[in-house]
């Protein structure tokens, strides 16, 4: 059973079958004017609110397609920019950083004391031995100079002329 709204809408649109239309008009004689008014309203809407006719529809279409392509190209560029830090680039950056760190370490970390080949000075004491009681030998190996220090030696008399 159709509701009143369904029958009314269909009657306004002229979609009711004839039998149902006559029955609806007999049941609601006060609605005859509304159908007239609805028809006028539809005519007015059609006349004043229709889509404008484009003078050059093909040109409009081509412009629209060009705009779409432009926007798609821009999206592609942004996609390329976002991948600037790609995995290969990051790998090379890491390798470069490691090489720079190694270079800095070689340049800045001091060489083993007493063996500064860069300056040509090499004096490495391999062995020391003292046979005098109370005499001790210690090696002081610094950059550019290696000194063997003997502690406990007898003092040379000051009146002994060594010059």
């Amino acid at each position, binding site marked *: 059973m159709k509701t009143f709204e369904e029958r009314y809408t269909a009657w306004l649109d002229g979609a009711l079958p004839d039998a149902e239309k006559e029955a609806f008009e007999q049941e609601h004689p006060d609605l005859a004017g509304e159908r007239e008014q609805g028809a006028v309203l539809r005519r007015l809407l059609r006349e004043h609110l229709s889509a404008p006719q484009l003078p050059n529809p093909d040109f409009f279409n081509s412009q629209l397609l060009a705009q779409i392509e432009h926007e798609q190209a821009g999206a592609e560029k942004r996609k390329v920019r976002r991948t600037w830090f790609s995995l290969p680039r990051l790998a090379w950056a890491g390798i470069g950083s490691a090489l720079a760190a190694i270079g800095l370490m070689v340049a800045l970390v001091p060489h083993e004391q007493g063996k500064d*080949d860069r300056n*040509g*000075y*090499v*004096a*490495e*004491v*391999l*062995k*020391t*031995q*003292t*046979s*005098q009681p109370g*005499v001790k*030998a210690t090696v*002081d190996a*610094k950059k*550019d*100079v*290696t*000194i*063997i*220090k*003997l502690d406990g*030696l*007898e*003092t*040379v008399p*000051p009146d*002994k002329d*060594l*010059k």
Partner: protein
Amino acid sequence: MLHLSARADPAAPDVWGCLIYASNSTAPVQTPGRLNRYDKKLEQETGFSSLQTLGENQAQFTGGHSGVLTFPGDLRIAVTSISRSPDGKILVGLELFRGEKQLLLTQARLNQGSPLFIRGPAWRQGELIIAVVVGS
């Protein structure tokens, strides 16, 4: 005094030695030319501001033959061995004597021209330092 124990060999390295008196006197620093670049280092490491040369010696040695460098104060350096290492450095064996007493036996690996310093006995207001250089 020089002792030459072997025939001079142009290929054999020479050994040069120097006796230095290190003190805090006002005398200016006076070291041999080949030690000039080490003056500041010696001053820093020993704490003495004045370095005076007391004597120098030089001799040439062939492999397997020992040699002696003598200095004032009855000090002498005996070179007991000298040879080349595979990396081109010089391996040298040295003994320091004062009179007949051996004070030190040492073996060192030196680059030509790199002095090895030995801080010896005290004398007057300072101490005696012996420098040994192999090669020029």
